[in-house]
């Protein structure tokens, strides 16, 4: 698959000496939804800002659809739409004027039909003549997206797109992002809601302290770094794990009622059958059992923690 964003050996040191990015290499494929995760200050926004032209790059090179963002900035930027994290709009303008401005700014001739389609898609058509200051926070967020889509970008950056929006609007936005992807737009999103990445992303990149920690297909990442746990509700509480079970990686809950067995999802054998036989042999009864899988959030936290 053809890379639509190529980041090569990119580093960035701000004037104060803070190194925000350290030799970043990243390829984002055309038509995918790529989620960039990282704790606050990890370098997510710096990376996006460099690609979009808001921050001067340090060393390295960034290509957008094959165009260098510095030497061929017109062609590169024309492909990109950006929805920033902050609700930054001209409060006194109407919705229609502000998206018309965005389209013109990106070098596109007026196209009322396209703007109408964008506004209808975002349920903003009825608000087209309303001043932005009179819109709710959720509506303003939609306006930001409409502005980014006004020039028909092929690559869309969404920086924390659903921060502070209600559940219903978040679901609407997820649907819209899926429709955009279906129409061929590449989506790169940063988010604090790992549930969002889990729900939507095809691939996930984790950035921490200016370095890319991992880039994987979402399902492969969850398979590779995730773990499964078997939880047994004991018939009678235990005070310690019996020595006969010492060769199993078991944990006892604080109240002694649960025995938790962690096993490798990639292993040929899970060891569950053997454990259950061993428990039976030693007269340890249980009244219930269940298995659970690591969430992306747990994987993310573990990855970041292991790097700290």
């Amino acid at each position, binding site marked *: 698959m053809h890379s639509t964003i190529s980041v090569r050996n990119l580093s960035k040191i*701000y*004037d104060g000496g803070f190194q925000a990015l350290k030799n970043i290499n990243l390829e984002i494929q055309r038509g995918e939804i790529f989620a960039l995760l990282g704790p606050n200050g990890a370098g997510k926004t710096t990376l996006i*800002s460099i690609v*979009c*032209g*808001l*921050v*001067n790059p340090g060393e390295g090179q960034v290509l957008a659809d094959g165009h260098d963002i510095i030497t061929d*900035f*017109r*062609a*590169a*930027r*024309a492909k*990109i739409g*950006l929805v*920033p994290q*902050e609700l*930054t*709009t*001209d*409060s*006194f303008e109407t919705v229609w*004027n502000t998206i*018309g*401005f*965005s*389209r*013109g*700014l*990106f*070098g*596109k*001739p007026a196209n009322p039909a396209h703007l109408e389609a964008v506004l209808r898609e975002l349920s903003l058509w009825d608000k087209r003549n309303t001043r932005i200051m009179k819109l709710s926070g959720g509506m303003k967020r939609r306006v930001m997206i409409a*502005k980014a889509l006004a020039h028909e970008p092929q690559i869309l950056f969404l920086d924390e797109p659903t921060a502070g929006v209600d559940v219903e609007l978040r679901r609407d936005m997820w649907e819209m992002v899926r429709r955009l992807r279906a129409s061929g737009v590449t989506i790169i999103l940063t988010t604090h809601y790992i549930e969002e990445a889990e729900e939507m992303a095809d691939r996930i990149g984790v950035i921490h302290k200016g370095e890319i920690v991992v880039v994987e297909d979402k399902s492969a990442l969850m398979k590779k770094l995730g773990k499964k746990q078997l939880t047994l509700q004991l018939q009678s509480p235990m005070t310690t794990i019996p020595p006969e079970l010492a060769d199993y990686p078991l944990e006892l809950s604080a109240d002694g009622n649960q025995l938790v067995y962690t096993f490798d999802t990639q292993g040929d054998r899970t060891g569950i059958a053997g454990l259950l036989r061993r428990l039976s042999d030693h007269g340890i009864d249980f009244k219930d059992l269940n298995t659970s899988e690591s969430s992306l959030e747990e994987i993310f936290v573990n990855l970041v923690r292991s790097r700290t």
Partner: protein
Amino acid sequence: MNLYGIRAIYLYEMHRAWRTLMQSLATPVISTSLYFVVFGAAIGSRMAQVEGVSYGAFIIPGLVMLALLTESVSNASFGIYMPRYNGTIYEVLSAPVSFVEILIGYVGAAASKSIVLGFVILLTARLFVDYEIQHPVWMVGFLVLTALTFSLFGFVIGIWADTWEKLQVVPILVVTPLAFLGGSFYSISILPPLWQKITLFNPVVYLISGFRWSFYGISDVSPMISLGMTLVFMLMCLAAISWIFRTGYRLKS
């Protein structure tokens, strides 16, 4: 060149002026009219002619320049400061527009508004005093050049300012005093010799002098020197803007 981009910035800025018509046009016209009433009609009727021109007519070029300077600086500085302040500058910086195109859009709109204002004030002056324009082409030339130069200067201030106070301080504490002391209401030839020499360090003297020459054929300094000094000031502003764009000062980290 991204002509659609330039057009978008230009029209957006012009639309903002239209939205705030009272502030953009009515306020300077009313305040300038008050100058005409007080200095032109009331006091001016009791004053002698200046080099053969009635005092009311003499001050017209100075008053137009006064409005032109302050409004050019104000329009251009506010035009670029506002998106920096509310964060919408991100869109301009991420768009496929070069810095030159950004400059043409913002400064072009600021200068256009000032030029329209200058002509409106000239028309308003007709209500109070008679005047002639001996060199109309030069008059328009000086008007456009001054509007452009001080819009460039305003653009620099709008980039430099990081508070509303700083945005106001240069127009109020620098531009307006320079305009008042630059011969808006008098010929510098009436000043003592030492002050005449000191006054020549005031760039506004050259603008007003050249502009007044285009009306009545009288000037404190040669019109060519006026033109040259205006161009020098414009080049200084362009050099400052070139440095801003090259370094990303206050625009990009």
